[in-house]
C-alpha cells in the first residue's frame, strides 16, 4: 500500500525521467523499462551470417542448412532443374544453450571452396543486450569458431589443400554482431568479422577482415524478409593475381524469407555464396548474382528443450 501511494505521488509530481529512475529504485533491476529487447532476429543466423541471438538455457538446436546449385548461368537452367539437382554445401549442426547468453555447438559441413569435409566447433556469447529504455542502445554478441578439414591432402604443394601438417587443415573466425531492433518491424545488424586460415594458396590472404550488414523486415507475426551482405577486404595484390589467372572473388549477398512455424524457423533464401561457413564464404566466394550464379538455400532449425529451466 505504501508503495502504491508512493508510486501515485511520484507519477503525479515528478518529471518522466525522474519517475523512471525512482521506479527503478523501487523495483530494482527488474524494472520493466530496463527489460532486454527480445527477438531482434528469429533465428541464430540471418542467412549466411550470424544474428545476435543465442539459445535459451537448456535448448538444443538441431540445424540443417543446404545450398543448391546455380539457378542460372552455365551450371544452372532447366537441365539441372535450376540448381536443384546439385548441392554446393550442406551443414548439419547441434547447438546448445549452456546459459541464456552462451551457446556452444558442433557441426559438419560438406564445404565448398579450397577445403571440404569441414568439422566446426563454435561458441557464441551475448556481451550486451539492447534494452527497451535505450540505456543499452545496441546488442553485442561475440561469435567464434574453429574449423578443421578432414579431406584428403592434395599431392601438389602449390595447392592450398596440400597438408604437410595437421594445423594446415585449420581455420577460424571471430565476429562481433552489433544489433539493434527498431520497433517491432525492423532489425539491423553490423558484423565486423575476422577470418584466419592457416594455409592458403599463393598470394591468398591468411588473415582477412570483412564487414557484414544484415537486416530483418517483419511483415506479419510469422513472416519476415531477411538479408545480409559481407564485404571482404581482400588486398589489391591478391585480387590482381587471381584475376590474372581467371579467378574473381565476389562479396556474398543473401536475401530470403523467414517463416516461423511453431517449433521450426524455416528460411527460404537465395544467395551467391556456395559455402555455408564464414571461414569459406567470406574469403572464397567466386560466384556472382550477375552471372546467374545464385542458388536456393534453406536453413531448418528444430529446437528441443532439454530442461535446465
Amino acid at each position, binding site marked *: 500500500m505504501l508503495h502504491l501511494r508512493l508510486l501515485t505521488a511520484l507519477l503525479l509530481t515528478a518529471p518522466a525521467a525522474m519517475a523512471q529512475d525512482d521506479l527503478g529504485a523501487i523495483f530494482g533491476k527488474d524494472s520493466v523499462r530496463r527489460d532486454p529487447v527480445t527477438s531482434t532476429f528469429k533465428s541464430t543466423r540471418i542467412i549466411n551470417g550470424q544474428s545476435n541471438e543465442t539459445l535459451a538455457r537448456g535448448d538444443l538446436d538441431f540445424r540443417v542448412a543446404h545450398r543448391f*546449385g546455380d539457378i542460372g548461368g*552455365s*551450371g544452372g*537452367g532447366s*537441365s*539441372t532443374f535450376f540448381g536443384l*539437382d*546439385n548441392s*554446393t554445401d550442406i551443414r548439419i549442426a547441434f547447438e546448445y544453450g*549452456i546459459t541464456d547468453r*552462451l*551457446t*556452444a555447438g558442433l557441426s559438419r559441413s*560438406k*564445404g*565448398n*571452396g579450397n577445403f*571440404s*569435409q569441414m568439422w566446426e*566447433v563454435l*561458441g*557464441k*556469447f551475448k556481451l550486451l543486450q539492447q534494452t527497451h529504455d535505450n540505456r543499452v542502445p545496441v546488442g553485442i554478441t*561475440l*561469435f*567464434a*569458431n*574453429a574449423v578443421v578439414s578432414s*579431406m*584428403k591432402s*592434395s*599431392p*601438389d*604443394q*602449390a*595447392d592450398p*589443400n*596440400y597438408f*604437410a601438417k595437421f*594445423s*594446415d587443415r*585449420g581455420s*577460424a573466425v*571471430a565476429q562481433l554482431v552489433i544489433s539493434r531492433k527498431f520497433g517491432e518491424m525492423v532489425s539491423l545488424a553490423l558484423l565486423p568479422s575476422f577470418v*584466419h586460415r*592457416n*594455409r*592458403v*594458396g*599463393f*598470394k*591468398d590472404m*591468411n*588473415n582477412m577482415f570483412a564487414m557484414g550488414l544484415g537486416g530483418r523486415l517483419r511483415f506479419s507475426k510469422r513472416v519476415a524478409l531477411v538479408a545480409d551482405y559481407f564485404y571482404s577486404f581482400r588486398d589489391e595484390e591478391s585480387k590482381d593475381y*587471381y584475376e590474372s*589467372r*581467371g*579467378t574473381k572473388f565476389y562479396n556474398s549477398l543473401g536475401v530470403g524469407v523467414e517463416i516461423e512455424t511453431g517449433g521450426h524457423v524455416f528460411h527460404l533464401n537465395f544467395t551467391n555464396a*556456395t559455402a555455408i561457413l564464414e571461414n569459406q564464404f567470406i574469403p572464397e566466394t*567466386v560466384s556472382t548474382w550477375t552471372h546467374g550464379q545464385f542458388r536456393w538455400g534453406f536453413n531448418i532449425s528444430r529446437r528441443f528443450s532439454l530442461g535446465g529451466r
Partner: protein
Amino acid sequence: MPALLALCILAACTSEQAPEPTANADCSTVNVTAARIYEIVQQHCTNRSCHPGTGSPLNADFSTPAKLKNYISTNGASWTFRVTGAGADMPQSQGYPPLPKAVRDSIACWVNKGMPD
C-alpha cells in the same frame, strides 16, 4: 566458451602460404590423346555418378567422348575455370580429392591443341 575457443585457435594458429604454382607444362612436348583424357574423366567424373547423363548436372554430360568435347567446345571458359585453372574446384567441391596439377596441365594442353583424338 568463446575465450576458450580463442585460446585454442591462437595455440593452433599458423600462417602458411602455398608456393607459386609452376608454369604450365610445355604443351609442345605433351602428347595426350582423347582416349587418355576420357579415361581420366571417367575415373574422376562419370564413375562417381556425376556428369554421366543419368545423374547431374545434365548440361555437363560427359557420358561419351563426343559429348565431353562438345561441352568443352561450348563451355571453354567454364571448363578452364573449374577444371584446369588455378582456382579449379572440380572435383573437390563434390568432396573428392583434387586433380593433380600434372593431370590438369595435360588436360589443358589437350584442349589447347584442339582436343586431338
